[in-house]
Structures are given as C-alpha cells and as structure tokens.
C-alpha cells in the first residue's frame, strides 16, 4: 500500500530523498550470499542505544537517530503532534539556529530529512565523512537542548498544514488512504493515523512542544545509528563526548497500553471526496505485531498478492479482468498489532461492488489452494534482490538496522530476517491467511466521488 511516512521535506528529482524501503528479504535456489551487516552495539550509561557499522565504500557517513515515539503517542486533542514535532526539531536549539542542520548537511554536500510513523520518529543525515563529528554534536544538541521560538513554531505549523493539504486534500485518493486506520481500529491510538487534522494542529502550543520533548526525546528512548566511513575508536570517543552528558530523566517513559480488542463484527464504510474520477475499495483485517512468529509468512503472502507485475492481484484484477487500474496488498506490521490492507482503484466502468468481489476472491483463492513452489521461489528471490538493492548505501544499511531494532527489538534481526523468509512454506502461507483473513472479521471501505449515487 501507499506506506506514506510523513516527512519533513518533499522529494524533488534527485535533490531530496523519500525512502520507500522494502525490508523483507528471502532467498531460494540461486547461489547468492547476502553479506551480513557487521555492526557493533553498545548502550551508554544514560540508556542511549548505539549501533555502528563501518563501510568505506564511499567517503560518506549516515547518522541517524530513531526515537521510539510516533503518531500513537500524540497527546489527547493533539492528533498529528508527533509529526509536527518532528518538523520543529529543525527549528533551533540552545546552540543551533533554526535551519542550521541544513547548513551542516546540505550546504556541505550532504542531506537530511526525517520521517514520522505510528511507532517511531526517524531523523537521518548523510554527510561527507569529514563532517561526522559535527553531525554527532548537532544530534546531541537537539536531543538535549531543543529551543523553538514562537515565530518559527507558527510558520512551521503552517507548513505541516500544507503537507496535510497536499497529501490528503489535494490528492485524489488522499482521503481514502487516510481512512484506513480510523476505520480499522476501535481502541488503539493507531486509529488516529499520523497526520492529524487542521483543527488539532492549530490547537498545539509551544508548551506542548516542551512537554513532548521532555517526555520522549531522551537518551533512554533513542537509538543512535552511524554507518559509513569512520574510524571506530574515534567515533566511539565522539559519541561519548557529545551524548554521554545528556541526562537520563528519572521519570518513566509513558507507553501506549491500549489493547485493541478482537473485531466483534464486520463493517462497511462509505467515504467520499471531491475529484475522485474512479471509485476505490479497500479491505482491512487485524494483523499481529511485527514480532509475531507469523510475520515472515504474512510478508511472503503480501508479496505473492501484491509485489510486482506478476503478482496475483495485478494479474487477476488489472491484467485479466481489467477491473482495476491499480492494486495493492500490504502486511503493515507495527510494534502493536498492525493491519493487512488490500486495496484497488477501479478501472473506468467497474463498480465498487464488482471490484470488492474480485479483490476478495483472489485473496481467498491464495488462502484455499496451495501456492506452487515456483511462485513461492519467485517472491523469495524478489524480496532478496530488493533487500540487497536497499543496502547499497550507508543510509540503506543504517535503515535496515533501525527497522530491525524498532520492529523486532534487535539489530541482529536485519541478518536473521532472510533466513526466516527463506523458511516460509506454502502451508505457512495458507495457515496465516486462514487465521488472519478467512477466520477473521473484515472491514470494507468504499471510496467514491462526493455526490455520486450509492452503489
């Protein structure tokens, strides 16, 4: 699916990067060895978890800080706040002026950006490696000394509101994608999504900013990842110098304790928006956490259904039936229970009901009939190749380690994931689809142009 991560800056050509990183991987017959990510890990006395990976392929280094806070931690009445806050982390600290992070990165041939998801906020830079010490200083500075002026807070909040308008209001299917979480969760704060809404963004204040920083932006709630061209002893000394002085607060870190109850019943919703030339439909089901032993099989099932031109949904709905112009199936696995989401945008002349029927029947077919071995091998090498492709750069390697920590609690999982996916069998695929789809309650969403007749 469109896994939009709300980001600080929009991509434009080659100038800025938006990451859509596929993390799954697998291998089958072909004799390719994926070199393991050789990382080192330690924890500072203040609780900061540090993972480093030396790689001298290019004279650059990626510095990343992953904070375990995201949209699910938005304060009450402040939907969208974690993402707004992410933007404000570029707006000044005790010793850094607003936008000075850009001076330290873009202006010297590097880049920076940040992204907020439901569970995590991810800040990342790539710089020529002779600038590494400065970036460590700057990341430590905004972890410990954030200081945003009111004027900068207000102008950046207006930017975030434009981001909301661009992605949700102006994009023909923006409202459709944004409806998935609210319609799929009953209790868990995942139901609010990440971007929030204009009213609650407008309600945010500088006091909220200070509270949020104090509560979540602390060394014992962060992971520092450095990958690329560095000297390990020198790097360790710099990390100690800049990060060790940051105090670990005595207060506990608030965690989301809500438990999403099992869905009691199926439900169907009709959403509308302007400028929707063709209807769209979605089906969602409750998924387990990313740490579930079923995660690998669900990722393989998702790839069988939606990864590439030859995937089941593309072949059936787009190619053969010509009922859809676009399809997607994703296992959106999160720290807490996630979602399985199938969606399709109709081809001209196809009704939402017909499209739903076709979408559902293709998924049920995979659940009921064993997948041929050759097709299983195909998705495994697809996932393997995508993983290798994503690890060509220091940033790609750091991303893989960060994902492994956030979603599996262990950077070493970046190296184990491949083995887990390789081990998935045809019967595993059937078993998880039965458990999470056939024997579960589905939510149906239909999206049509406002003012259109009911189907």
């Amino acid at each position, binding site marked *: 699916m469109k896994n939009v991560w709300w980001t600080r800056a929009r991509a*434009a050509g080659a*100038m*800025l990067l938006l990451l859509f990183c596929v993390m799954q991987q697998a291998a089958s017959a*072909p004799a*390719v060895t994926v070199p393991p990510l050789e990382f080192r890990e330690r924890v500072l006395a203040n609780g900061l978890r540090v993972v480093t990976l030396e790689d001298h392929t*290019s004279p*650059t280094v990626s510095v990343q800080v992953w904070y375990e806070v995201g949209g699910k931690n938005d304060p009450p009445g402040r939907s969208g706040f974690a993402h707004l806050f992410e933007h404000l982390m570029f707006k000044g600290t*005790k*010793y850094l002026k607003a*936008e000075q992070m850009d*001076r330290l990165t*873009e202006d*010297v*041939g590097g*880049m920076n950006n940040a992204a907020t998801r439901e569970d995590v906020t991810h800040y990342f830079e790539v710089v*020529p490696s*002779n*600038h590494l*010490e400065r970036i460590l200083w700057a990341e*430590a*500075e905004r*972890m410990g000394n954030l200081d945003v002026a009111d004027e900068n807070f207000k102008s*950046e*909040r*207006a*930017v975030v509101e*434009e*981001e909301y*308008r*661009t992605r949700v209001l*102006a994009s*023909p299917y*923006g409202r459709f994608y944004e409806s998935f979480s609210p319609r799929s969760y009953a209790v868990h704060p995942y139901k609010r999504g990440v971007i929030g809404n204009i009213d609650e963004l407008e309600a945010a204040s500088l006091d909220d900013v200070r509270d949020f920083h104090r509560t979540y932006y602390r060394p014992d709630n962060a992971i520092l990842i450095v990958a690329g061209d560095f000297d390990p002893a020198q790097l360790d000394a710099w990390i100690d*110098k800049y*990060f060790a002085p*940051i*105090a670990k607060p005595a207060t506990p870190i608030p965690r989301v304790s809500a438990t999403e109850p099992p869905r009691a019943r199926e439900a169907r919703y009709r959403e509308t928006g*302007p*400028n*929707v*030339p063709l209807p769209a439909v979605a089906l969602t089901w409750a998924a387990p956490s990313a740490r579930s032993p079923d995660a690998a099989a669900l990722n393989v099932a998702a790839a069988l259904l939606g990864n*590439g*031109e*030859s995937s089941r949904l593309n072949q059936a709905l787009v*190619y053969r039936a*010509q009922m859809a*112009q676009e399809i997607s199936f994703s296992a959106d696995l999160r720290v807490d229970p996630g979602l399985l989401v199938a969606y399709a*945008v109709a*081809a*001209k002349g196809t009704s939402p009901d017909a499209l739903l029927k076709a979408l559902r029947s293709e998924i049920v077919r995979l659940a009921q009939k064993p997948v041929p071995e*050759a097709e299983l*091998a*195909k998705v495994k*090498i*697809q996932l393997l190749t995508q993983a*290798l*492709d994503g*690890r*060509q*750069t220091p940033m790609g390697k750091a991303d893989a380690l960060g994902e492994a920590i956030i979603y599996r609690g262990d950077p070493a999982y970046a190296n184990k994931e491949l083995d887990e996916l390789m081990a998935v069998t045809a019967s595993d695929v059937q078993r998880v689809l039965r458990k999470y789809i056939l024997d579960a309650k589905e939510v149906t969403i239909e999206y049509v142009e406002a003012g259109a007749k009911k189907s």
Partner: protein
Amino acid sequence: MTRLLALAAVLAAPPLFAQPYDKPPPVGPPRPVTIAAPDVATLDNGLRVVVSQRRSLPLVTVELVIRSGTETDPRDLAGLADMTATLLAKGTARRTAPQIAEAAEALGGQLDTGAGWYRTSVSMTVTRPQLAAALALIAEVTLTPSFAQGELDRERKLTLDALAVALRDPGKLASFASDRAAFGEGTYGHPAGGTPGSVARIRRAAVVAQHAKYYRPDNATLIFVGDIDPAEARTLAQSAFGAWKRPAAALRAARADDAQAAPPAPIVIAMAGAGQAGVAMTAPSIARSAADYYPGVIANTLLGGGYSSRLNLEARIRRGLTYGIFSQLEARRQAGVWWIAAQTRNESAPELIAVVLEELRKVAASPPPAEELEARKLTMIGAVSRRFETTEDLAGTLASLEANGIPVAEVTATIDRLAAVTPQQVVDFAKAHWGPEALAIVVAGEADKFENALRAAYPGLRVIPHDALDLDRATLTK
C-alpha cells in the same frame, strides 16, 4: 530512584542535562568523491557498450538505452514513444505479457520499460547469477515485441484511466497545462505519456513504425553497472545483441520543432473542490549541449533546487505557504525546459506567484554572495555524488549522458565543472534565460478563492473551467 536523588543532592551546581559544547566542532580534511571513467566499446553492429564495475555487492543493473524518446512523438500522437516502450514487455514472438512478467520476476528483478523525453530504457537490476538471463529477456522484448492489438487496447485503457486521475490532481494538472502554454504545439508541449485525445488515437501501425524507426543498434547503448568486469560484459552483450541488424539507411534526426510562441497571459483552471491550488510556471530553456549548461544547473539550484533554495527559503521557511517549492532545469538534446512548481492553499496562490517573480528578479539583479553560492554548489555536488552510490542511479546518470550524445567520461568531470561555476556566470545565466515574461503561469484550483486577486495583477488572466480543458490544443480549450 534513591540513587538518583542522592546524586542530585550532592551536586552543588546544576547537573549537566545536555551536551555542553556551544559550537560545532571543526571539520576534518576533505574526502572528495571520485569516480572511475566507465569502459566504452562498440559492437560491429554499432551498439555501444558502457560498463562501470563495482564489486561491493553481488548486484548488477543492466539498462538498454534507445537514444530517442518522447520528443519523437508525432504532433497528433503524443504518448507514442512511451506506449511503444510499455508494450515491449507485453508480448514477444515467444511469450505473452504474463509470461514475461513471470520470467522477469523469477529472476528477482523487475523489467522496467519506458520512454523519457530523449531516451527510452529497458532495464533490470538483478543479483549477479541472474544477469545472463535478465539480459536475454531484455534482448527478447526489445528485438521481438509482438505489439498485439489486445495489449495495445488494454494499455490504452490503463493510460486513459491514469490520466483521468492525474487531471484531478491540481499539481499535475497545472504542470501539464503550463507545458502546453509554454511550448504551444511544439515538441515539448504535451504530457510525456500523452493526452486523453492523443492516447485514444494511437494505432498499432504507428507503434510498429515507431519501433522500426528508432530501435536499432546504432541508436542504442547497453549499460552495465555493478558486479561485472568489462570483458565479461562485452561477451554477454555480443551474445544477446550481436545478431541485431543495423539498417542500411542512416537514422533521420528527430525533428527539432519548437513552435515557441510568446507565452500567453496567466491561466486559471477552475477545479471545484480542489484541496489546494497547483501552481506551475514553465519556460523553454537551454539544450544539454549549451556552453552555459553547468552555470544553468547551479543557477537553478540556487533558485529552486534542494531544501535551502531561495524559493523554498522564502515561500516555505519564512512564509509557511507550501510544503515545498522546487524549480528544475531539464536540459534535453534539442532544447530544454525550465519549470517551477508548488502547491499552496487556494487563497495563497497570488502571493506564491509574487514570491517567485521577486526571487527571479533578485537572481538576475546581482551575483549571489560567495558563501551562498558555495553552499548551493555543494548541495548539487552532493546530490550528484549520491547518484554514484547505487547501481540504478549510476546507470541512469550514464544513460542520460549517452542519450544526449555526451561522452560518458564526462561523469568523472561533473563535480569539477559544477565547482567551477562563478557568481557572475549565475547572474549572466539568469539575465540571458530567466526573463519573467518567458514564463507560462498556470494555477489549477478553486478559482473563486484567488481569481480576483490574480486578475488585479494580471488583467489578461484567462479562466478555463476544468471540463472545458483540452490539453491537445495550444489554447488549452475545446
């Protein structure tokens, strides 16, 4: 908990809660990015083979480049080059479309086919053991496509549906319309993928003729980037493409038809319910071969490339008008396109346009301060350098040089050429090419929220209702 309390009590001064250093530490000695010149060879049939070897991962990108693209579209068949490229993967003498997709993805990669303005690419990224099979598949679809009528019909329907969606997105719509307003019915006036009218007109015979004319070994380059050495690559290229015959007659050069009327007065496309206004401003610009190409790239970076450009600084960072505003100089083989685009609240569209014109005026008025220019040059140099880091990006960079007729060895000099641009060259470029009168300005959005304010600035403003728009015509109306 008690230990922490005790510790706090012992300290007379407030404890350190943060890192205490008040200035950024110094930078170390420079670590310049270097890139080796690719290996270049030519097969007997004229096919050029370009190889850039890197051994870090068992991965290879292979890209066949046809050095012609969308700029060859006949005037009434916009989208023909892209449709032809798309249909390559939809059936050959040996395989159906689903069989091709299956074969490609069983190698782990994805078979990408498509046309850009001046080049057409057929490419895959695969692990090293799959390379020979991937190359054979690329050769099969390039040399023996069947162009079945049923596949053309299917692809036409998909393209028309995708266009119907794009035309309801104010940003995309404004860009399509401003290209047409800037170039009229000239070569670069149409959307690369075609218009609703032109896509409906594409017939099989035109696709077959497009393929016969431009897909020939002396108009193509095969690029390998990754885990392969030049000798192996040449052997693979010979076995996959050695039998490809070069036609006796030379390829006629693509038409250079740039009917560039002076741009019309600003245009509003009235879209009920648009969640934002899409603002696009487009003008003809320089070709890739122009002597001032590198100054143009840097001038554009200063104006609207990257996050800290002057446009983004003023419109986003200072005024909060937009999530991002960017400009781009697309220097193509025969001419170029220069565009500026952003989305903003409907009510803010007039202010956004005024900001752009004021920043343009400033760039042309005086040379940029040395410190600012240095930073923006490094921004661009960094972006270029990062495109050397992955096999796909480097293959794309080499493909672009090849298709523009520039020796690929230039890739080794790119960074130096960007670094050599002077403040005076930037101001000279802006004066020569960036008169605000050259820009075709289009705003797509809820017209009643900005039309009056815009008309005050532009009395000649033309408002076109969304349902009266015709992207096939220079006038943009039916």
